[in-house]
């Protein structure tokens, strides 16, 4: 591909840029964004993405609820978030323009499909005047491009119908962005060849549209400058781009391989968790058994059955499904079977905001069951961290014979980042020891260290025994209703979970080890907090950051760490759930910083809060 520029054009080198593609749900914005992301990743940029799409599969075309967007922040230095403000906004129609223009920075590049700004289009987007003509966009570098007409012209030789040609206009826009940021198109060519293996004409059409977009920028007077964003200096290694849900799926496969047992997933489709089922159902060559259950309860119950049989059993869901699973999780607690429950959180209550992010299921995970029913709770911090936390959750579940809840959220699930691929040899083994010796076997006789009971699976001669949800006698596991036995069992189950604190890393603050302010975060707020921390420390502020990946039990030294700072702030996408836990457990005046908008924190928001607290 010729990337030599006409001599009249300038090329500027930048440190980072944020592009957002937005259009109708049917305009292929997620694909366009993903393609740009992969190309940037292969080029060596660090990056973070933020797909933001409606819950409706196809809201009426051109309307405000139907707008789908994909944002990517790519850089030659470290990237922690998809970016607060957008440098280049590609808007395929008036509705997309209207809902996204507020995030474009002043003097930012705005590319619109001028063919879609007719009277009807404007009416669908509830625009009283045409924004392309009413000077409301004067603060931006506006490029009115006839994307539809130009795409059709580029494809006229292929003999496609108008609808098929129009479906390629997103690739025209993609080609333009490739020119703008001086990117090769071969990665996308490969992807198109693979995607349209059986329909080579469509592969060709999209390639042509993309080339036409690229050539258009090169030829037209309007575009005078292109940009160069050099590769980032990432840690040496082999990288791939990964989303949180893919990373979870890979993490569980890796854990099952390292444990040497079958991976079983029971799941019921739910946004934004379904992709984990889609991924794992492809990995049958690893012996993975996936079961699409009849409902959320059957999903977790089947996983319990598989765990009873000696599998690494997982169930994956989101908040509403989590609520349905709770009784069964109680059974896994009582029968002390290893199980991992993934909750990919979304906005609630009830159906809430299915495609938007939130982290308001923490208290549900910690306490949402009848009676005293503690479980280990973990949370992934970044898309790539989902791999490691899936592995860690599996390790804890198996070692301690306990159900583990792993929290992710919509932002991590669909967002992507470059991920350093670990070498398989470096992954630790997960030892599994099934009971086999009938001599002295008791179903609830515990390992003195971990308090785990034996994993005695059906089919093992001489170990026939009964388990169930009724309170059991200590050691024998027989039904027992005696008052003191119940208290003993409640305390043992709690002690077992609490004891895991000795088996997880201590909290080590990033930034200042003591000082004026400690930021305590968990889950997907890692990115914005990290970026904000860098910004305020560069200004000389004495601030530290602890990001909790283990939420129950908490790191054993957390209480001491909290005391080393004058103030503690907890940014959360909820009404203050972790801050409540910290206040209750450590009697610390944890200040909540809460955003409940279905959108991740912006770096500037966290930064402003830090500054406010340091005044």
């Amino acid at each position, binding site marked *: 591909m010729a990337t030599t520029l006409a001599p009249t054009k300038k090329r500027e080198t930048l440190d980072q840029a944020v592009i957002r593609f937005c259009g109708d749900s049917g305009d292929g914005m997620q694909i366009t964004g993903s393609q740009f992301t992969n190309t940037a990743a292969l080029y060596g940029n660090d990056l973070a993405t933020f797909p933001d799409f409606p819950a409706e599969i196809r809201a009426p075309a051109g309307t405000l609820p139907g707008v789908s967007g994909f944002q990517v922040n790519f850089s030659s230095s470290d990237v922690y978030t998809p970016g607060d403000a957008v440098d280049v906004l590609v808007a395929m129609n008036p509705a997309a323009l209207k809902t996204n223009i507020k995030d474009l920075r002043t003097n930012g590049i705005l590319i619109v499909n001028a063919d879609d700004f007719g009277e009807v289009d404007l009416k669908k987007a509830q625009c009283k005047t045409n924004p392309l003509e009413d000077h409301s966009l004067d603060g931006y570098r506006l490029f009115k491009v006839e994307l539809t007409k130009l795409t059709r012209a580029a494809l006229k030789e292929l003999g496609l119908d108008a609808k098929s040609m129009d479906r390629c206009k997103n690739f025209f826009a993609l080609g333009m962005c490739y020119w703008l940021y001086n990117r090769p198109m071969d990665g996308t060519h490969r992807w198109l060849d693979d995607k349209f293996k059986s329909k080579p004409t469509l592969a060709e059409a999209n390639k042509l549209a993309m080339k036409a977009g690229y050539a258009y920028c090169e030829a037209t007077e309007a575009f005078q400058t292109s940009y160069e964003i050099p590769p980032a200096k990432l840690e040496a290694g082999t990288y791939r781009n990964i989303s949180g849900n893919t990373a979870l799926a890979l993490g569980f496969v890796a854990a099952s391989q390292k444990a040497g047992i079958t991976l079983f997933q029971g799941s019921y489709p739910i946004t934004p968790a379904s992709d984990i089922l889609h991924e794992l159902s492809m990995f049958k060559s690893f012996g993975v058994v996936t079961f699409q259950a009849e409902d959320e*309860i059957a999903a977790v119950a089947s996983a319990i*059955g*598989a765990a009873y*049989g000696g599998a690494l059993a997982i169930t994956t869901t989101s908040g509403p499904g989590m609520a349905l699973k709770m009784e069964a999780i109680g059974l896994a607690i009582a029968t002390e079977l290893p199980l991992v429950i993934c909750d990919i959180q979304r906005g609630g209550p009830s159906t809430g905001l299915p495609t938007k992010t939130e982290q308001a299921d923490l208290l549900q995970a910690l306490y949402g069951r009848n009676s005293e029913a503690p479980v280990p709770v973990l949370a992934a911090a970044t898309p790539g961290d989902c791999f490691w936390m899936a592995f860690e959750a599996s390790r804890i579940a198996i070692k301690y014979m306990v159900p583990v809840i792993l929290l992710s959220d919509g932002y991590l699930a669909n967002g992507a980042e470059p991920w350093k691929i670990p070498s398989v040899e470096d992954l630790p083994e997960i030892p599994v020891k099934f009971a086999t010796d009938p001599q002295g076997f008791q179903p609830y006789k515990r390992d003195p260290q971990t308090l785990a009971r034996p994993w005695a699976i059906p089919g093992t001669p001489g170990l026939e*025994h009964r388990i*169930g949800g009724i309170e059991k006698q200590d050691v024998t596991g027989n039904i027992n209703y005696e008052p003191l036995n119940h208290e003993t069992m409640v305390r043992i189950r709690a002690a077992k979970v609490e004891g895991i604190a000795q088996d997880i890393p201590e909290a080590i603050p990033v930034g200042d080890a003591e000082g004026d302010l400690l930021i305590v975060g968990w889950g997907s707020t890692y990115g914005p907090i990290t970026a904000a921390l860098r910004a305020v420390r560069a200004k000389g502020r004495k601030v530290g950051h602890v990001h909790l990946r283990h939420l129950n039990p908490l790191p054993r030294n957390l209480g001491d760490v909290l005391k080393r700072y004058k103030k503690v702030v907890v940014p959360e996408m909820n009404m203050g759930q972790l801050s409540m836990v910290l206040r209750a457990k450590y009697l610390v005046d944890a200040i909540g910083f809460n955003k409940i908008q279905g959108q991740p924190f912006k770096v500037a928001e966290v930064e402003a809060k830090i500054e406010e607290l340091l005044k």
Partner: protein
Amino acid sequence: MTATLPVYTKKDFQTDQEVRWCPGCGDYAILSAVQSIFPELGIPREKFAVVSGIGCSSRFPYYMNTFGFHTIHGRAPAIATGLKATHPDLEVWIATGDGDALSIGGNHTIHMLRRNLGVKVLLFNNKIYGLTKGQYSPTSEVGKKAKSTPYGSVDRPFYPLSLALGAEATFVARSVDVFQAHLKATLRKAAAHQGSAFLEILQNCNIFNDGAWEAIAEKDVRDDRTIAIEHGQPLIFGKNKDKGIRMNGLNLEVVVLGNGVTEKDLIVHDERHPNPAYAFLLSRMDSQPGFPTPIGVLRAVDAPRYEDLMSEQVSDIIAKKGKGDLTKLLRAGDIWEVK
């Protein structure tokens, strides 16, 4: 394998746990029948797993000296599905009741049957909630006066066998707690079936619904009020074997033999009939006055088991693609090196 199999007796399947059903409960008879047929099946004891939900019947696993899992209300089929999906070799029996299987667990029941999971389901039907002390159940007759329906229930009951057939269960049968010989024979047939074997056992709750099945199961009326159906045999019943059932259009009809009506006019039972509609007709014949309640195997057809299809898919893919390589999986798609 069979050569080294120990010779079991009924005692080998009894536990040291004190049985905690009410004296006189029909569950004792069912337990005894199951314990006495298990030794005959030629299966190592450790291969048995008895899974149950919640309710009186669901205490069953505690009294069976096998692997046992007393789970939560209605969910035994789902738990059994996960167990079978990863251990197709296990012999899984589910003990459940009318409330457990047809009310709170109704969804799991129909989907388990639809999938033809290789399990035996013993549905103890006493038409009442026993463990919660006497509320009407989804099999209680209309007008049932119980604790929660002092003025009588108003909703129509399920015919459990009709429901199972609606889900295209591959084995559908019925027996009665007090018909020990028939019960054991039917249990053996269920045990021999490869897919989901759904066996409704009419069971008496002598505390909250005593005599629920008296009208058909009492010694002096049972021959006239039940019909023991057998594959290949005409549908004949009555103390004097003088009544039969024949087709009349799309309906069944009770006829008296003689006066020109002979055995040849009667339906010859075909449990392998490919159309589940036939068994469906049988399953609810007693909804009409004058008809007996059918006991025995209504339907027994062959179909692949869910867990086998699942594991075959896994092994087929491994055969085709080779065993998964974790390094390759982690490095799939576009990757790049940072030096």
